[in-house]
């Protein structure tokens, strides 16, 4: 008979408060690229002359801005459990549209608005197709990738659109309070959308939809609307990214966004947002984008040949993500 006497042993498990270190490690689980970022910064600081010089940092910030803005938008689509492959093409088309309007009207603002409007339009089409018509997002946005890109090419005959009013390049090159204007735009976008995601009902419903779409519907989330808005945001921010490209380059072109598709996806998934949806956020996307820009610039400055850069980038991605995971493992 072994009854009862162990009553004392069965006291309630006192929930132990996790230590500060444990909490920090837990936070890191959500930011797998943070260690890479830190290590890379330190490594480049000591191996590359003038890595931390103001001008080099400004260069990196300008490089970061459009990538970050496009990736913020696409993060919303990933979070809701879909994918947007049209980002790069929308960036291109919006840059073309913005540049054309700037050139022909001479107005910076009219051009910027047009670029964003083009993105908004593409986003609305994507949103409607995926949310309302229930087209699978991979194929639909792939089709959009092709069509939108082709429109840009047809519109320009393949030429890029340049020699814009001087105000464009001035705005794009200028800094305010020590930071490039384009970075300010990206930062503002980041803050607004981070608040939208973390603080509002929309953000919450977006995450829930991505985590379990069926359950979201049972929990009175309007899934269609949520998915629609996710795509609309992605399109609009891709449009804005196109505008930033114009500001930065002083021209727009039908293929300037081609590389952005892969880099935005890389920034998002490296940052730690899941492609399955429901898990991720904009801090992660920020770290992912920062890692990409940092490696790109740093390795270039180190003077590695471009294929050896590729080897290092690949190795860093693998080792870094494994290391990040290892450091954050539950103990």
């Amino acid at each position, binding site marked *: 008979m072994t*009854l*009862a006497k162990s009553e004392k042993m069965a006291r309630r498990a006192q929930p*132990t408060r996790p230590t500060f270190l444990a909490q920090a490690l837990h936070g890191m689980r959500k930011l797998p690229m943070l260690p890479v970022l830190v290590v890379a910064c330190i490594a480049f600081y000591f191996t590359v002359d003038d890595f931390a010089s103001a001008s080099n940092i400004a260069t990196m910030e300008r490089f970061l801005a459009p990538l970050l803005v496009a990736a913020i938008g696409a993060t919303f689509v990933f979070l809701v459990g879909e994918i947007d492959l049209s980002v790069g093409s929308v960036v291109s088309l919006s840059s073309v549209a913005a540049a054309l309007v700037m050139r022909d009207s001479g107005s910076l603002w009219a051009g910027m608005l047009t670029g964003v409007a083009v993105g908004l339009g593409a986003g609305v089409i994507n949103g409607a197709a995926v949310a309302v018509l229930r087209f699978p997002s991979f194929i639909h946005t792939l089709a959009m990738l092709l069509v939108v890109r082709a429109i840009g090419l047809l519109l320009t005959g393949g030429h890029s659109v340049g020699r814009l009013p001087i105000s464009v390049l001035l705005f794009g090159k200028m800094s305010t309070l020590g930071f490039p204007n384009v970075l300010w735009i990206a930062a503002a976008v980041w803050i607004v959308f981070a608040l939208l995601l973390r603080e509002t009902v929309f953000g919450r419903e977006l*995450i829930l939809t991505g*985590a379990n779409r069926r359950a979201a519907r049972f929990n009175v989330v309007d899934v269609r609307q949520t998915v629609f808005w996710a795509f609309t945001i992605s399109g609009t921010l891709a449009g804005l990214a196109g505008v930033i490209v114009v500001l930065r380059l002083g021209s727009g072109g039908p293929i300037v966004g081609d590389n952005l598709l892969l880099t935005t996806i890389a920034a998002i998934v490296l940052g730690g947002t899941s492609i399955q949806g*429901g898990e991720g956020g904009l801090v992660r996307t920020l770290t992912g984008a920062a890692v990409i820009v940092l490696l790109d610039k740093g390795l270039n400055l180190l003077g590695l040949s471009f294929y050896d850069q590729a080897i290092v980038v690949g190795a860093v991605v693998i080792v870094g993500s494994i290391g990040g995971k290892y450091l954050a493992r539950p103990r």
Partner: protein
Amino acid sequence: MGYSAESLLSLRQIKKSFAGVPVLRDVSLSVGRGEVVALVGENGAGKSTLKNIMSGLLGPDSGEIQLGKKVLFRLRVEDVKSFGIGTIHQELSLFDTLSVAENVSIAELPTKRGAVDRANIRQTAKELLNDLLEADIDPDAIVEDLSLGERQMVEIAKAIRISHSLLILDEPTTCLSIQERKHLFAVVKKLRSRGYGILYISHFLDEIYELSDRIVVLRDGVVVGEERADLLPIKTLSKLMVGRDLDESPEQPADLVPNSPVILSVRELSDASLIREVSFDLRAGEILGLGGLMGAGRSEIAEALLGLRESEGRVTVAGHQFMNRSPKAAIGRGLVLVSEDRRRDQAFLIRSLGENLVASHVRRLAQRLTGRVSHAAEVSNGRQIVLEFGVEPGRLSNQMISLSGGNQQKAIVGRWLAHKPQICVLDEPTKGVDIGARQAIHALIRDRASKGTAFILISSDLPELMALSHRILVLHKGRVASTIPRERFDAADIVQVASTGRLH
């Protein structure tokens, strides 16, 4: 402690913690040949964790495991396979996109000239499901098309297929109705007589007493009692489990306020596949039970009411016809559904407990203008549900998936009852929930009903149905076979109507 039988699997001084929080502390347990050992305890006591260790999914932090004659530090999947340990997992371990037959045999697919021997696995599935468990499930059906109850039967068949020495059942009956339970019990007894060792985890004390030879009580990761079933009075058992005396006065629903208004009226509800011309009225403050066997269409009626399933017929809520139904429109009229398959339809497993608790009413916690969710309101709401339903551990930042099965259930039921709806459809509200929490949920339902909330209660647990309902609608093959008022409740009658569609 001289229990007889030759031991199949014994655990000695097992310790296990998750992220520094101890879950099992020094647990010893053994299962012998030809005996049924029941493992009971509150939600979160560590039963499933113990099961996971026994089925090779988790390694203990310390302790030793004796498997047959081998002594091991942890079981590997290979050991489990070669020794023939089959497990029925609380959260079902099935493959949605494969067929029933493939699921049943997936661990060891027989081949014929390199290909899966499909005739063979179909035969195996037929034997196990149709003959042994007497469930009418097509071996070629795809699992995702099955109802929860049917899936549970497939899970059972799959475990039996793997097992040839020890069978572990972790809450196998939560979605089964009386009939299927009976079949399962018969199977368990048959296996015992063939010399299998069986570990049976359940919150249903009547099942425990019916089946088990020995009962092991787990509380907060410690074995607080172990006794032969026939020597352990139920009162002692429940005290051991929860650490206090449980209120044992017979459960009675509050008296229905006479002439309370009809708040929901359903006329000739039918759907394309199962439901046939179902009509009933529900009055404010009434608890209407829906009885029936698995597949009788109870969950389907609930889904049709909320517009989750296409149907014909008229639904009137508070005097207004309710057309274009959807969960969102329903909630606007004060009608909510706590659906049966909570893992699939309700849980956001990768999100935090806090977010899960308020998932259905974030909108109410937000500022109208900015849509900003008030963090303070969210936390206080969550805390209240945690307290009221005893969700443990109740830290709101914990991931939902790290909660024990029963605690997930409590959290989701709590989420919906926190709405204070006018009409609440509860599909299996206490499945997987321990006896203490079950009483608390019952009390809450009764309390809400006395304040005017109307309930439709779907439960495969007949005692629960009879204890709570004012009236029971017994369904048979999608039709209302009989409506029984509380005065005439009789378990045998209900079972008979449910299985034959007629009384005598």
